[in-house]
């Protein structure tokens, strides 16, 4: 699997993402700057990592979503390419219109930097196949604008089409209001595109991929996508 990590001014999680991808695939991902207008030949997966692209000016991800490289990502996605966006990457994907909804300021108005529990809501995706449905795992989160919002019609579609990938849950796996620290609609922490090949999520699975990091809870995501694209 050939992965490409996009780098915008203010991106700061590209190294963690590279470690996770390298661990799952054995190959070093390419890093691509935001002003590029094409992806390297043979790209299988495009990853938008976390950070504060363009200083979060106007809205989180608004500037990055309109940068030159995103036209290439849009073409790649339209041809059925796989895309992963984490944290600011998720915000960029919604701003680019590649995923529905938007990420609002956390309902508490506080920047949240802590671990959360995520419940796997579907295994029917190249990003979640290595988990069991309903399984919970730990993931660090660090965001000020992670409050997922969408209108009623979009929410109904996401639910009906089994496109909610992860929900915030408590240690028992219940999607409670207390576990929903940022106030996200329906406890949504991550969603899939219509063709299930684009995943956006707020918490950081790439930060738990090695016992030295304190756990390997996030590794199944990278093993899932590496497995799905190994023969691609």
């Amino acid at each position, binding site marked *: 699997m050939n992965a490409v990590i996009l780098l915008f001014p203010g991106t700061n999680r590209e190294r963690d993402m590279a470690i996770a991808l390298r661990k799952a695939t054995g190959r070093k991902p390419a890093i691509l700057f935001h002003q590029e207008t094409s992806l390297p030949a043979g790209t299988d997966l495009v990853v938008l990592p976390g950070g504060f692209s363009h200083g979060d000016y*106007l*809205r989180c991800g*608004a500037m990055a979503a*309109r940068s030159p490289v995103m036209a290439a990502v849009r073409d790649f996605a339209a041809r059925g390419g796989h895309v992963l966006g984490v944290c600011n990457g998720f915000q960029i994907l*919604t*701003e680019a219109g590649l995923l*529905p*909804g*938007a990420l*609002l*300021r*956390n*309902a*508490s*108005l506080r920047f949240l930097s802590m671990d959360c529990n995520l419940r796997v809501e579907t295994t029917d995706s190249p990003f979640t196949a290595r988990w069991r449905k309903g399984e919970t795992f730990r993931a660090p989160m660090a965001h000020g604008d992670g*409050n997922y*919002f*969408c*209108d009623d019609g979009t929410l109904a579609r996401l639910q009906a089409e089994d496109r909610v990938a992860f929900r915030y849950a408590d240690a028992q796996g219940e999607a409670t209001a207390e576990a929903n620290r940022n*106030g996200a609609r329906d406890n949504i922490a991550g969603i899939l595109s219509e063709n299930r090949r684009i995943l956006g999520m707020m918490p950081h699975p790439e930060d738990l991929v090695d016992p030295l990091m304190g756990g390997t809870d996030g590794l199944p995501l990278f093993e899932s996508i590496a497995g799905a694209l190994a023969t691609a």
Partner: protein
Amino acid sequence: MKLIVTVMPKNGVLDPQGKAIEHALGTLGFEAVGEVRTGKVIELELAETDPARARAQAEEMARKLLANTVIESFRVELA
């Protein structure tokens, strides 16, 4: 030609900043304050001199970048 684009969260979209300001005003003794909503004001200086065309340009800018119409509405006015 100068235009002013006002961007506001849509009705039904949570505005925690507005809520925080509302509470702070209450703390200061302004008890008769109802709902407070916060938004953004963006001033544009355009080369266009025809008001209708300038407004159309600003509206296109708002739809494409200045506002996220999933969560925000906007209003364009000539300054």
